């Protein structure tokens, strides 16, 4: 009798423990962002008139997505939209959930993904996506989107996603008043930067603010683009130029020189903290994507052009390194027609111009209504129309997940050893493994 009682108690305790464990992450998620639905609901069986949209847009980006859904509902009033959001910056959690769902044979109707190789190298290679070329042709998007962009989101077998926004990655930020105080001009090339850096260092100012590891990758791509030029950059990712070629090594050694001008506590800072360093006057410059403009305009209430200034990162003027969020159509989508209607909203001028001012990015379309955007975004949109468009590595356009995962360790290796040859060689091995 006693034994039964004990085992019963143990069981109850175990159950309680399990329950306790299960509750934790939910609490955390709720804390992070009051998302419409904190967790992906179980996929609805293929009945009813549903549309399940899978994304990581919660928190600040939630309203922008909601606005898109509003437009969709107006056009398709009888469809029940399920907004399946999984929180986590850059989709780190969402991608894991998506992987389990896709592998489990329960794809959402349409899911968010970084445009480019992150999608192509992962899901298209695995033959899990539908070709959207017919949709692009039917909607006239071939002309509405810049040609360079269409090339980067497609392969010779088709076009794989509908881009909803464009972010620029090669932007250098500064505070004009501070630069004036220190007597420094915004540098157009890295040589000018090094001259300015010597002056700044003498005055006790950190020339370039850097944050955690991914921002080092982010900085690397801007430096590498400046070092090798857009043609070589594209050749690199199509496998025509080897990473351990002289151009590749040169990019790494320039990057090493740039790193000497950054703060030592980088890896424990977030990108916002690195931006703050520039705003506080502790550092002079910061290279970050243009979500920094959103942060400085919205959160810090600064006026573009006055409170903060920007320039394409040294040596990359006339080049627009882009990254984009996009939505794709997985094979076996339970409500394919609804999903296609959703993609049409995303690519349309109305959808794009409703979404992007809220999200703090520009439209991928060349005909967008610029009056809806703020000063920074207008300048970015103007550049996007005329600049050479290249894909970002740090944000999934240029290379697939295998390469990106490995690149993080190459970067660590470089941060420690500072050896350009070793890093270039490691990249070359990685490229071979990732099938570039």
């Amino acid at each position: 009798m006693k034994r039964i009682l004990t085992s019963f108690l143990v069981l109850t305790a175990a159950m309680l423990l399990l329950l306790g464990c299960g509750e934790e992450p939910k609490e955390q998620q709720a804390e992070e962002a009051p998302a419409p639905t904190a967790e992906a609901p179980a996929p609805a069986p293929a009945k009813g008139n549903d549309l399940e949209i899978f994304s990581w847009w919660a928190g600040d980006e939630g309203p922008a997505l909601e606005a898109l859904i509003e437009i969709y509902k107006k056009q398709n009033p009888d469809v029940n939209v399920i907004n399946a959001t999984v929180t986590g910056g850059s989709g780190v959690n969402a991608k894991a959930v998506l992987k389990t769902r896709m592998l489990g044979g329960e794809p959402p109707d349409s899911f968010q993904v970084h445009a480019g190789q992150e999608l192509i190298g992962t899901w298209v290679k695995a033959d899990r996506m539908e070709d959207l070329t017919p949709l692009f042709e039917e909607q006239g998007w071939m002309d509405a989107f810049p040609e360079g962009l269409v090339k980067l989101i497609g392969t010779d077998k088709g076009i794989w996603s509908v881009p909803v926004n464009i972010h620029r990655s090669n932007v250098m930020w500064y505070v004009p008043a501070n630069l004036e105080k220190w007597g420094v001009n915004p540098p157009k090339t890295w040589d000018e930067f090094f001259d300015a850096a010597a002056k700044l260092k003498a005055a006790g100012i950190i020339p370039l603010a850097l944050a955690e590891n991914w921002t080092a990758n982010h900085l690397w791509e801007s430096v590498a683009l400046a070092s090798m030029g857009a043609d070589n950059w594209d050749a690199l990712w199509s496998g025509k130029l080897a990473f351990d070629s002289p151009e590749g090594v040169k990019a790494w050694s320039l990057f090493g020189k740039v790193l000497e001008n950054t703060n030592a506590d980088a890896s424990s800072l977030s990108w916002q903290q690195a931006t703050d360093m520039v705003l506080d006057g502790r550092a002079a410059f910061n290279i970050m994507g243009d979500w920094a403009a959103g942060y400085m305009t919205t959160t810090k209430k600064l006026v573009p052009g006055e409170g903060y200034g920007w320039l394409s990162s040294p040596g990359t003027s006339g080049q627009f390194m882009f990254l984009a969020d996009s939505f794709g159509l997985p094979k076996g989508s339970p409500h394919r027609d609804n999903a296609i209607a959703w993609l049409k909203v995303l690519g349309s001028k109305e959808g794009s111009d409703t979404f992007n001012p809220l999200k703090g990015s520009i439209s991928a379309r060349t005909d967008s209504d610029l009056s809806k955007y703020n000063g920074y975004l207008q300048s970015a949109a103007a550049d996007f129309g005329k600049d050479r468009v290249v894909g970002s590595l740090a944000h999934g356009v240029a290379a697939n997940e295998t390469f990106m995962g490995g690149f993080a360790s190459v970067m660590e290796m470089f941060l420690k050893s500072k050896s350009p040859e070793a890093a270039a060689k490691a990249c070359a091995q990685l490229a071979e493994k990732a099938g570039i």
Partner: protein
Amino acid sequence: MILVGVFVYGFIGNTIWTSMTDWGGSGSLALEPEKNFIGLDNYIDLFTGFLGSGFRQDLVNAVYYSVLLLAGAVGLGMFIAILLDQKPRGEDVLRTIFLYPMALSFIVSGTIWRWLLAPQGGINILPTYVGLKPMTFSWLSSQAAILVFNWQDLLRILLFMAAFILILVGLFMLRRDQGRAIGRWLIPGIVIGAFVWLFGDIIPDALFMEEEHGFNMATLGIIMATIWQYSGYTMALYLAGFNGISQDLRDAAMLDGATQVGYYRHIAIPMLKPITISAVIILSHISLKMFDLIFAMTGPDNAQTGHPALTMYLTTFRSNDFARGAAIAIVLFLIAAMFIVPYLVGQYRQRGRD
């Protein structure tokens, strides 16, 4: 039994098999991913390959981390337990306070410690409250390392360590069984040690290039957090042990003129050897599996503080490199087995003897 067979050993077997394939790279998420048998290539690559340097640093971290965690948590736990054993006033309250960190999950305490150890805040600005300059130690972002060794010398270092252990065991056995101690332990130990010392050059390099790994200073913050979390647990273990020693024994020792220190040093602590052993076993496998705390504190951001379990997760689920992830998992599994199997064997033998 069948369930255990399938869900434990079957899955271990499957992981071993996966680790010997080339499942990874592009197309790895296809419905029928292409997998080819490539033998031990993944392991060879992890230990000697060009791209495995991160993993090797992680392994070194795990070793330093385990040793320091064991020393810290067992030592501090024992110390607190001895203090509480003096029956101070408010013992119950103190015990609760010390045990409380155990109740927090790693992800929560990791986040709290991350704030505490932030370079421009937390602990570093404490001195400013008394008018001093803030400290500038970069707790979680340091790239500096001490106790650095070259991975090329790995085989030599391992042999030295083996020799050292053999000699140590030999000296320990000397009192009990002289002949066996010299023949079985001391002489082989000295021979191996001397051989490596004299002819070390003919032992092959573990790596084709120099690669240095060491104890990273940023790991210190993580170790502090873990010790904080686990010393309460070892304290509870020891306290229970101390309370279990009969008061008569203590009185007898005191009558014989033992000091407080002497009592603990020669009587109480040796009596609690089983507790020490189980604490070491539990903590060592916890330190091997450590994941959430590191993820919360430095995460994938400062890879110098990485840990094999973390790398396993990132490799498998972010880079989609399933085979390599499986190989890391198996390495971890083997290391854990190194700790646990001798313990289980020891237990089994003991039971046989009883």
